[in-house]
């Protein structure tokens, strides 16, 4: 599903964010990406979303190299990815329901279909009764869950999350990781960047460890994973 081949990224200005990173993630798997801050986690996710291009090597999605894809195609690559941001990236002048509807509007779905799917996605993150609420009226954890509902609503085959538990207490974080596991069991490829090591270890999923832009460890999933 996602494949990195000797990927290096150097930003203009000389910051070497990634050096020779190679790995492969199979479809429908749940993978965590850890490392201290500045280790290159965000850069790695940005490369998958075509927000950046690698300096060396190549990133492949479904066997297709993003190197050969023109910038114009970046939006269609992003539509195949549900992205969850640490700072949620919600529109504060739109209701929760309209925020979640955004990817479906872009896809040009029928209004009734959009409403139905938005409610299903909000139900999944336990915020169905907040459909008409404004994002600013929600707590940080609830805003994060709105972001997750938006990432899932178009049912993309791939979900990326950048520090999704950054603002959540341990119980909520655990619940959220459980949701990610459910999604991966339903066939969605899930890649989560998180520095919450204890939580990541409890999940028992595969873990990629980055340090100063180098992939220093690739811990395979424990069979069975954690019990819920």
């Amino acid at each position, binding site marked *: 599903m996602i494949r990195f081949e000797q990927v290096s990224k150097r930003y203009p200005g000389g910051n070497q964010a990634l050096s020779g990173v190679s790995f492969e993630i199979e479809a429908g798997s749940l993978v965590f990406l850890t490392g201290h801050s500045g280790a290159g986690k965000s850069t790695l996710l940005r490369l998958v979303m075509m927000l950046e*291009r690698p300096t060396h090597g190549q990133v492949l999605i479904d066997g297709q190299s993003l190197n050969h894809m023109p910038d114009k195609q970046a939006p269609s690559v992003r539509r195949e990815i549900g992205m969850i941001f640490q700072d949620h990236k919600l529109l504060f002048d739109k209701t929760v329901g309209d925020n979640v509807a955004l990817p479906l509007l872009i896809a040009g779905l029928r209004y009734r279909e959009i409403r139905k799917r938005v409610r299903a996605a909000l139900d999944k993150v336990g915020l169905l009764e907040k459909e008409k609420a404004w994002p600013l009226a929600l707590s940080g954890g609830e805003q994060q869950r709105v972001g997750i509902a938006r990432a899932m609503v178009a049912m993309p085959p791939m979900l990326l999350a950048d520090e999704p538990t950054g603002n959540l207490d341990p119980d909520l974080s655990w619940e959220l990781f459980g949701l990610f596991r459910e999604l991966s069991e339903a066939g969605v490829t899930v890649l989560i960047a998180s520095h919450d090591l204890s939580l990541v270890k409890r999940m028992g999923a595969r873990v990629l460890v980055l340090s100063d832009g180098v992939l220093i460890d690739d811990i395979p999933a424990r069979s069975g994973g954690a019990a819920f």
Partner: protein
Amino acid sequence: MALRAARRRFRAWARRHSYSFFSSLGTLLQHRLGTLMTVLVLGIAILLPLGLYVSLKNMDRLDVRQEDWSAISVFIPGTMAAAEVEALAEAARDRPDVQSVSVISPEQGMAEFREVSGFGQSLETLDENPLPWVVTVLPAEVDTRGSTATLSLRIQSLMDFLERDERVESVQFDYKWLQRLGRFLDLGRATVLVLGLLFGVAVIVVVANTIRLDVAARADEIEIFALVGASHAFIRQPFLYSGFWYGLMGGVLAVLMMWLALFYLSIPLKRLLDVYGQGFEIYSLSPVQLIILLLSSGLLGWLGAFLSVQRYLRMLVVGGSLGRR
């Protein structure tokens, strides 16, 4: 199969457009005061060349009655005997370069003047008729599009013939003046073109600047749209609609102001032209011209918006600040 897929894609495209359409209207209504001010500026910018164009069109219609203007008026003192005047008219009629001749006696002139001027009462107090005889000589086939030089050559001998006659007090040929007016109208038309181009550019710039501010105010929204996979076309669309609305509303305002001005001017203008015996309808834009004006105003606005958004979107491509905190 392919047909169904195409139809599905078309429906998705149409739904995206209807979303952009309504969201652009919503934005304009949200910022009523700003919208109003922009539209006012656009309306004035469009009104200037439009107003000049309509004024020229109205002046242009004054020479619709070419015959009146291309005739030579010969004035003979009112004391001259009718037979003498008739003899002169007969002599003119015999010339090959004359198409027709008509004679207006001082009495006829007075009757006509009394009727159209509204000075009937005061004219009664005059002891004698101060009006001269007027012999109107229409030259044969005056080519109205001919240059002044050819015209002079063809008319000159006729003018000389009339002026040499000792019964004649003065000879007046208005056509030259008309032609000079024509030249001024040509100049005016060129001015309309130049003004139209300049103010067309002004409309583009005003809309581009308004949309630029709008884009800057909604930078966060645009970023989020791009991050969840909106194409540039989708992000651009509401702004293009906004630009079109701005231009269209500016055009509508310009037309309303023009109508108001014409209505205000029509009453004194009619009164003035009635004195000259000219049946005159004030010229305004035809329905087709109106549609062309409004559409092109809208398109100019669209173009301004396009230039503005396009510049911004170019910064959103891969490697930009997109999604970075």
